[in-house]
């Protein structure tokens, strides 16, 4: 793709998504505690340069959709003993997500 071109957004607000557990090299900014977990898209943040490109000094790539995804704390931690409604919101790029299977 050309510089600044937009990678199409595959998801929208309300979609249930799963964070991919990508076992590849590179600057994937999904902390381990959300990998493989399912959450819901709560906000579309816009298009930004891919951290994987930026980490190697490449600012000439396409821009990717970024979303805020919400996870229930009890889904992230099996022993979470506080509120059922406690949630964690984090930003995840489109290509690090897939449709949730659950």
């Amino acid at each position: 793709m050309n510089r600044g071109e937009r990678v199409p957004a595959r998801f929208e607000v309300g979609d249930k998504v799963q964070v991919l557990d990508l076992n590849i090299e590179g600057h994937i900014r999904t902390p381990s505690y959300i990998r493989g977990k399912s959450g819901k898209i709560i906000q579309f943040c816009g298009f930004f340069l891919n951290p994987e490109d930026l980490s190697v000094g490449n600012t000439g790539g396409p821009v990717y959709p970024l979303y805020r995804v919400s996870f229930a704390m009890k889904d992230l931690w099996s022993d979470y003993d506080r509120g059922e409604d406690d949630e964690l919101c984090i930003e995840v790029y489109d290509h690090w997500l897939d449709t949730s299977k659950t």
Partner: protein
Amino acid sequence: MMNEHKHDDHAPLVAEDDAGNLEGQQITNALQALLVRKGLISAGEITLEIQKIEAPGTHLGAKIIARAWADDDYRQRLLANGKNGAAELGIKVGEAQLEVVENTPEVHNLVVCTLCSCYPRSILGQPPSWYISKAYRARAVREPAAILEEFGLVLAKGKKIRLHDSNADLRYLVLPERPSGTDGLDEEQLAALVTRDSMIGVTTIASPQKTESN
């Protein structure tokens, strides 16, 4: 030398004391000395840049909070677009976008960057050393209620915690609940009540009349 720069007392930026950081500082100092000696940059330019980085203090964030408390229409606009809201007050947000998250009687917000130390520096200045410590970054997303208690904040059981891990392009600012007993105060007086820690979400703001913590 960068570490001789005169500035307000605050905790050192690096909380971890391991060999890697020490070496990095030595390299930085050597590089700086070389660049200055070769006339590529001046010591004055370095001082200016440090001042620019350190200039934003929490007063910018406090100003935003105070206006949101005083003006409900502004609050709505701020929540819809934090960067534009700040710009209305003449405050330039340097980061890609500012997300203002509002505390309510039902929800308490807490901000962390687990991967590094992302923080709305252009409006809050440099983060406190505990914010960039590994302990906070690991524990905030694991046991937020325990962290809050360590900061002296005990939330009601039914109150929901909403955590924000700012791991990408947004930066987060907590809009604390306006404390009671502040009806007569003007914006300047309101801004004086707002603390840095309340804008990160580890504390709330006590009513000015009360002396005990909430």
